[in-house]
């Protein structure tokens, strides 16, 4: 659990973070969003004390971060940054094993852990262990960055625009993997991003910041429906909010069991989102889709009315 109580940070005359109070529960994925320069990275870096806060208090599991030795503290917190910061003179395996080695794990255990993480992040050991960072693609490098952050199994993970520099497809793959990882590992994650779709799809809780303050926080759907002001509304997509919400809802949640009618000719997977279903309807100019499972077997149907109707019900 991470708690910030009225936390402030000033750089000279400028107040980068202005009295933030925030509580991130254990196992929660909290996403910070806001315009450039609003203090997201500063907030993140105050948690692992790369930046010291000027006012207020930051607690980890009820203990002030200042009560920890900063080196010990950082080894307990995973940290991932956009530019990866992999050490260019170390192999992938050595980069990933950094924190376990700092913690003086026995060599065999470090190697075991490194290989376990490489498998977890889809980096075949034989192929990647001895590569150097310059030999990796952006997506592979970022996977190594995530593996390095997870190496010593920290409870807390700080991620500063980790997928910001990747192409949309790689980014989506990594988002998906992060979601699966999180479902298994239940880390407490603070995640910074500029990509609103990424924020909405990953967040248990969304925190909107503006000029060093928190403007609003809550679940993604809650914020979409009930933005506190015009700034939050436009940040969340303005008129696109309907589509953004639809992107968060799975077809499976809205479909009806197969009826007596003939199967509709166009199909959609039950794991697809409502926005994708809507897109298929628009594309084929139909108002009814057959919902299929992973094996492409029809399990239900989705009508346009059903797709639209949910908000009222």
């Amino acid at each position: 659990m991470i708690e910030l109580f009225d936390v402030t940070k000033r750089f000279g005359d400028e107040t980068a973070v202005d009295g933030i109070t925030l509580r991130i529960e254990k196992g929660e994925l909290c996403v910070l969003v806001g315009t450039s320069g609003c203090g997201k990275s500063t907030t993140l870096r105050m948690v692992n004390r790369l930046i010291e806060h000027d006012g207020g208090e930051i607690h980890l599991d009820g203990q002030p971060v200042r009560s920890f030795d900063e080196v010990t503290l950082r080894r307990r917190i995973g940290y991932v940054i956009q530019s990866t910061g992999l050490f260019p003179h170390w192999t992938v395996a050595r980069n990933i094993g950094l924190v376990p080695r700092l913690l003086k794990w026995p060599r065999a255990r470090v190697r075991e852990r490194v290989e376990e993480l490489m498998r977890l992040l889809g980096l075949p050991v034989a192929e990647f262990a001895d590569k150097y960072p310059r030999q990796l693609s952006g997506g592979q490098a970022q996977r190594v960055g995530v593996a390095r952050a997870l190496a010593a199994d920290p409870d807390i993970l700080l991620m500063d625009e980790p997928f910001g520099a990747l192409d949309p497809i790689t980014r989506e793959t990594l988002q998906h993997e992060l979601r699966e990882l999180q479902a298994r590992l239940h880390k407490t994650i603070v995640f910074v991003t500029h990509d609103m779709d990424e924020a909405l799809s990953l967040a248990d809780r969304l925190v909107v910041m503006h000029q060093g303050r928190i403007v609003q926080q809550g679940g993604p759907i809650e914020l979409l429906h009930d933005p506190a002001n015009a700034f939050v509304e436009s940040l969340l997509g303005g008129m696109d909010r309907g589509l953004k919400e639809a992107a968060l809802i799975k077809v499976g949640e809205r479909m009806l069991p197969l009826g007596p009618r003939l199967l509709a000719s166009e199909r959609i997977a039950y794991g697809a989102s409502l926005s994708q279903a809507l897109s298929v309807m628009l594309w084929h100019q139909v108002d009814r889709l057959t919902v299929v499972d992973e094996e492409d077997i029809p399990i239900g149907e989705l009508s346009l009315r059903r797709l639209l109707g949910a908000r009222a019900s």
Partner: protein
Amino acid sequence: MKSTALDARRITPLARARRWLTPLAWLALLLLSAGMGQLEWLFRLIEPDVRAVVYRRSGFFALLGQHILVVGVASLLAVVLGVGAAIAVTRPAGRDFLPLVSQLASIGQTFPPVAVLALAVPVLGFGTLPIIVALLLYGLLPIVRNTLAGIGSIPAEVHEAARGMGMTAGQVLRQVELPLAAPVILAGIRTSVTINIATAALGATVGASNLGDPIITGIVNGNTAYIVQGAVLIGLLALAVDSGFERLLRRG
């Protein structure tokens, strides 16, 4: 995959030995040349009219040893002081002195070594000491400059990650900064040492005996053979050391 890596490792010792061929060849040539007292007939061709055509006041091996000793001591001190100073001013505590030191380093580069020597003698007297001091001061500068450049060129995100992962300041220095800056630092040391091998010859003018002796004596007495003997040995020494450094640098 794995097997090619192993194969590569197996042939490495031989391949590595072969890569050192050039520096070793220069070294061999240098040692051979130090025995050039035997080549009296050759130098007689250059200077048919003088009585002594081979410098005999001391043996070439002794002069060579002296030369290496002076350059070695000065360079060692320069490395310790230069790298040390550059590290000190890139730490948070010493950062205030960074502009001063880097400015001194660049100004010092333009200062001719003869001038350093001229300034050192009145203070330190004649002999080996002033030349060591002059070489040290002159050799310091490329080392400081390159160490600063090497550490300064490490990407900010590498620093950020190193600290963020929980490395101590000492671990960041030893495991990240120095290894990453090593090629640039080594290049600075190379410049410093090779320049100083040539510059050390000036020591002969202030009474330090080394390979500069035959040259200075040759100039004073108008004996070209002496000059050639000193110059050839200094040149070969510089080449051997320089190609050794090149070898070291290319490995990275």
